[in-house]
């Protein structure tokens, strides 16, 4: 009951954020020096072409009128019409986005599957080989140009070993390399966060109590330390999904993965401004939603938040 109110309040809070982003995009295209219509049409376009685009995009009308139209369109879910495909922008996005989401989720799971054990072991046994491996993973993860890693992986696994397809979309084999590439983006941070929160939990006083009870070390670690450590890990790895959607732009370019990132790049190369704008606004909406979902999930996992939240409202 009050959970619904909590969600409603969080949704309300998201409105100004989104509004600022929409204004920002509007200003970015229109107020910056230069003629957007000319920019869109390209330097080699004729004056008539430029004029045609100007009218098509409504750029010939006063700014405030343009803004109101732009805003009402967005509120109706209308992100405009693609110049290149001549179809509604939202349609293009809705075809492409599930593929990006698929890639991001597989990458997220992959990075959790690798980073979580590494981080936990390195916290429990810092001076072992696994501990060293965790340190290296965490460093390489934060320093890796993932597009380069993707190309190297293609060279090793597709060109040399002929094990996996180098690009495209469709079979499960297609997702392995791009997902691993994208997962690298998260892995560094995730190993570090896991290690830090496990160490943090192990330092806590309730661990002393658990030991003083005579519980076995296994129960102390699993039931008390790890369960507590998982709360920040889950929260943060959820928030990282946003970073993954950003990194997906690079990954999709490397592997020709036909998702929203590749669509964005195509629209940039072909100066399809309505499409560019639409994709960025769509990204913002999705990311705000992800943050919201993570917050709610957090409230579910942590009884402290859950109860204080649901009682106070």
């Amino acid at each position: 009951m009050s959970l619904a109110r909590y969600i409603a309040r969080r949704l309300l809070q998201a409105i100004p954020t989104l509004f600022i982003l929409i204004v920002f995009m509007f200003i970015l295209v229109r107020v910056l020096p230069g003629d957007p219509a000319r920019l869109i049409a390209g330097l080699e376009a004729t004056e008539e072409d430029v004029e045609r685009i100007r009218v098509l995009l409504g750029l010939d009308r006063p700014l405030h009128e343009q803004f109101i139209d732009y805003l009402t369109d967005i509120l109706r879910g209308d992100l405009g019409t693609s110049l290149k495909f001549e179809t509604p922008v939202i349609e293009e996005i809705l075809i492409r986005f599930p593929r990006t989401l698929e890639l991001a989720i597989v990458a997220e799971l992959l990075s959790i599957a690798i980073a979580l054990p590494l981080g936990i072991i390195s916290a429990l046994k810092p001076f072992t080989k696994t501990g060293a491996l965790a340190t290296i993973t965490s460093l390489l993860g934060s320093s890796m140009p993932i597009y380069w890693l993707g190309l190297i992986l293609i060279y090793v696994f597709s060109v040399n070993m002929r094990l996996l397809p180098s690009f495209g979309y469709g079979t499960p084999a297609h997702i392995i390399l791009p997902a691993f590439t994208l997962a690298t983006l998260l892995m560094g941070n995730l190993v570090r966060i896991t290690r830090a929160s496990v160490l943090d939990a192990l330092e806590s006083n309730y661990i002393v109590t658990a030991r003083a009870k005579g519980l076995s070390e296994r129960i102390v670690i699993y039931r008390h330390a790890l369960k507590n450590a998982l709360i920040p890990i889950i929260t943060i790895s959820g928030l990282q999904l946003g970073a993954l959607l950003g990194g997906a732009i690079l990954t999709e370019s490397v592997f020709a993965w036909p998702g929203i990132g590749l669509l964005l790049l195509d629209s940039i190369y072909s100066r399809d401004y309505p499409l560019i704008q639409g994709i960025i606004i769509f990204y913002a909406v999705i990311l705000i939603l992800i943050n919201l979902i993570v917050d709610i999930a957090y409230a579910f996992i942590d009884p402290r938040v859950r109860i204080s939240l649901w009682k106070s409202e």
Partner: protein
Amino acid sequence: MEVRIEEKKRKERREKALFGQWWRIFKANRVAYVSLYILIGITLISLFADFIAPYSPYEFDIRRAREPPSLEHPFGLDEIGRDLLSRVIHGGRYSIGIAYAAVFLGASIGVILGLISGYYGGIIDDIIQRFTDAMLSLPTILLAIALVTVLGVGVTSLIIAVGLSTVPIYIRLTRGLVLQVRNMDYVLAAKILGKRDTYIIFRHILPNIASPIIVQSTYYLGLTILIASGLGFLGLGVPPPTPEWGAMIGRGREFLISSPHIVAFPGIFILITALCFNLIGDGLRDALDPKMAKYIRRGRI
């Protein structure tokens, strides 16, 4: 007068001692220390590229395009027959230079806005924070792509785009730090003495929050190298024939199957440089006051 000079001297001595301690802890971290030297080396090589590079980075011989590494050309030749080693050496200028300039730009704007936001609070703070929230809801690289799309290709617009995309992160960091020190005795004392706000901000607050910002900037140097070269890779960075590392990979990728060296070498340099920045950042962070260190996070794309 006497007293004031004495005080100044004492302050200098104390600062020197503090720096000495910092430096000692930093030096004790061998990995960070070695990384610093590698990075200085890479920076110097890029700076003096004209003297160090064995060949011109622009002269090409299309007949010898994509020749693999040899004694004559240790990194081989690129897709149109330019010496890859010379291009990588010259490329450091762009890749590292852009990172330094972008972080400087982003930090300057972000720190000032963060100082204002944290120090004054109230409505200014609210406005800046809503703006920051909005910008932070986009991944940094997407923000950079959006900006570069509007600004067009080129070194300057790349610096501006990448620099501006780090502004919201700096605002968040600085504001948090300011809130930590805003109610410290020395700030309150300065307020009671009727010092001007700008004096308090720049003489009392900024020096006390500078070190975490420096550490954070070290991490962001690593991050911006990745972002800027990523944009270069996507063809949204500097225009050809500029030898920027990311762009070199982007143009070499077509020949990955037959000539992987064109892709491999610039990437290794991006990786090493970013790695150095991260390791130096770790060393600096450990040398820092642990209370402040918790505000610092390594960046992500």
